[in-house]
């Protein structure tokens, strides 16, 4: 038994390593086209972020919003909804949070920060909820509505930060950059390490992950959502108000994306800026799926993805290749990992691979 476990672990590692190798090999061609040495590039990419405080902290700076978005995505996926509206939900969440942080009367940070989080949760929930409501009650496909709502959110957000919410100084001095005023310093999320950007947002996100885990698997609401997600007919049969739970799923999905928005505002930017969503709405989907749509699985997935982002970014600067190569390499690596996954989780596929090695002459039914 021990032996079997070991060999299966070896198999899993082997197959993942093999597919990664293929991906990196293709990537190497790209590096060569760009005139860079692939070996140094890869070395930087996978080791540099882990070598110093800066790299490690930056990883967590990315992981926090990714994890939050992924939590929401996990909930909605589990309820059978593919939410690709994370980008828009982050922005609306950020705006709600900003309104509270900038315009509410001064109060102690221990009151203000939860209030900002609450506001941005509500903002994101509103945005996700629109798509959820349309799906549940008007039968509008969520992919269509979330894609479209992303564009609408961007326009609303940009309008607010370049219009009514723009920093007064930008008007006074005539520079007119679209950004809001800074949030008072006492409301910022505490930086965990001096000189680095890492803030308490990651801790918050991990706590949320645990809460979501309990919510989905240990409470009746989670039970209902999962039931609606996989078999609407059976859920209806069981007395579950399926429409309401579809809506609720999108409310949560949007809410968590919204939280990511305020974590970015309070933890990183301290003001409202353009493109604050930074693609987290999309990468959050990848993180959620890598995490097996499991809130706890999303924690390591978000950290690994953080490494991938930071590492690729550092690599680009270290070997001076066009920044596009970051995207290409990330894409290749993700493709490789998802492709290898099936050989790990599905016995029949695993057998196919093993047969390649064992019996080159072909499968014999007599084999023991």
């Amino acid at each position, binding site marked *: 038994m021990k032996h079997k476990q070991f060999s299966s672990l070896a198999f899993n590692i082997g197959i993942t390593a093999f597919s990664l190798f293929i991906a990196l090999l293709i990537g190497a061609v790209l590096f060569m086209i760009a005139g860079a040495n692939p070996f140094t590039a890869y070395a930087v990419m996978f080791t540099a972020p882990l070598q110093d405080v800066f790299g490690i902290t*930056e990883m967590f700076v990315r992981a926090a919003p990714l994890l939050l978005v992924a939590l929401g995505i996990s909930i909605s996926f589990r309820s059978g909804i593919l939410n690709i509206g994370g980008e828009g939900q982050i922005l609306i969440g950020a705006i709600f949070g900003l309104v509270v942080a900038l315009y509410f009367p001064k109060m102690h940070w221990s009151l203000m920060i939860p209030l900002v989080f609450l506001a941005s949760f509500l903002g994101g929930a509103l945005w996700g909820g629109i798509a959820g409501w349309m799906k549940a009650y008007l039968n509008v496909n969520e992919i269509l509505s979330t894609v479209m709502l992303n564009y609408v959110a961007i326009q609303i957000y940009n309008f607010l930060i370049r219009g009514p919410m723009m920093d007064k100084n930008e008007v006074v001095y005539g520079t007119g950059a*679209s950004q809001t005023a800074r949030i008072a310093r006492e409301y910022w999320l505490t930086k965990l390490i001096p000189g680095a950007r890492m803030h308490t947002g990651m801790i918050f996100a991990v706590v949320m992950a645990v809460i979501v885990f309990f919510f989905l698997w240990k409470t009746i609401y989670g039970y209902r959502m999962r039931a609606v997600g996989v078999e609407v007919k059976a859920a209806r049969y069981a007395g579950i108000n399926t429409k309401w739970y579809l809506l609720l799923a999108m409310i949560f999905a949007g809410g968590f994306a919204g939280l990511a928005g305020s974590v*970015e505002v309070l933890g*990183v930017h301290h003001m409202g800026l353009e*493109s604050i969503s*930074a693609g987290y709405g999309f990468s959050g989907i990848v993180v959620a799926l890598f995490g097996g749509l499991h809130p706890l699985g999303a924690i390591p997935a978000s950290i690994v993805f953080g490494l991938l982002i930071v590492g690729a970014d550092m690599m680009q600067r270290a070997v001076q290749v066009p920044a596009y190569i970051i995207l290409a390499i990330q894409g290749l690596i993700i493709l490789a990992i998802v492709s290898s996954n099936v050989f790990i989780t599905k016995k029949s596929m695993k057998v196919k691979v093993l047969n390649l090695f064992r019996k080159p002459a072909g499968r014999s039914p007599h084999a023991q």
Partner: protein
Amino acid sequence: TKLALVIPSTIDDLAWSQAMYQGIKDAQTELGADKLTFEVSERLWNAVDAGAAIRQYALKGFNIIIAHGAQYQSLLADIAPDFPKTSFAYGTGFNTPEPNIFAYDPHAQEGAYLLGMLAGLTTRSGIIGLVGPIKAGDAIKYNKGFEQGVMSVNSKAKVRVAYTGSFGDLVAAGEIARTHIKAGADVLTGTSQQTVGAINVVAEKEGLVWLSSDMDQKSIAPKTVLAAQVYNFKNVILNIVKNRASGVYGGKHLELSFANGGLILNFNDAIIGIAPKNAREKILAAKEKIIDGSLKIELN
């Protein structure tokens, strides 16, 4: 001196980012390749990635770090105190929140005013089309200057403004240009990297004219781009290097204007004949007035 450049778009966008890239290269040529080396990080329009890049450059000991966008101001304010011996610069901006931050500020409205005059003088239909990205920052300065320029020479002309809602959607920019042209515009202008899409559409029909900003975009449409306001960032770079040499790491507001050579007005001699004969003289006269301060452009 080791210099790092962080840009939102790419070094070949024929606009804002390329203008700075060009400026650094020119400065390098002037100072000598051994005196100034530089690295670039592109496509950092979102502030999270830009923040990581800036901090990493600072950690690696770069002397000058240029974050080429107004949106980077708060990032620099966060990072600069940790690296007092490094000079940071950003623009468009005026504010220098730390003693080692420079803010540079191209007076887009000045060139815009002159281009506006040219537009007002050149247009036959009396309709001028402006292709905007989003209504903020430099785009507003440019648009305001441009409109005043048009009005100063041709009060009957109409300046029509339409925005795409993004900086990078060149197809949309092209479509807006097309719509302007259908609506009668014969002189068009605009800002941001998406305008290459618009220029190409303008170039499809002979006799239409584009006025370009940030960079001289003549290279893609030599028979269409009539004049250009060019940002000469070389001076900004040289200025920063000079300041550092005298122990000043920042805290200055560096303006780019016609007065200090930060802005350059280029005419396309091959097609300048489209414009009325005296246009060039009028515009150059106005430029002098801008330089000596007797011509003020309203921004509010």
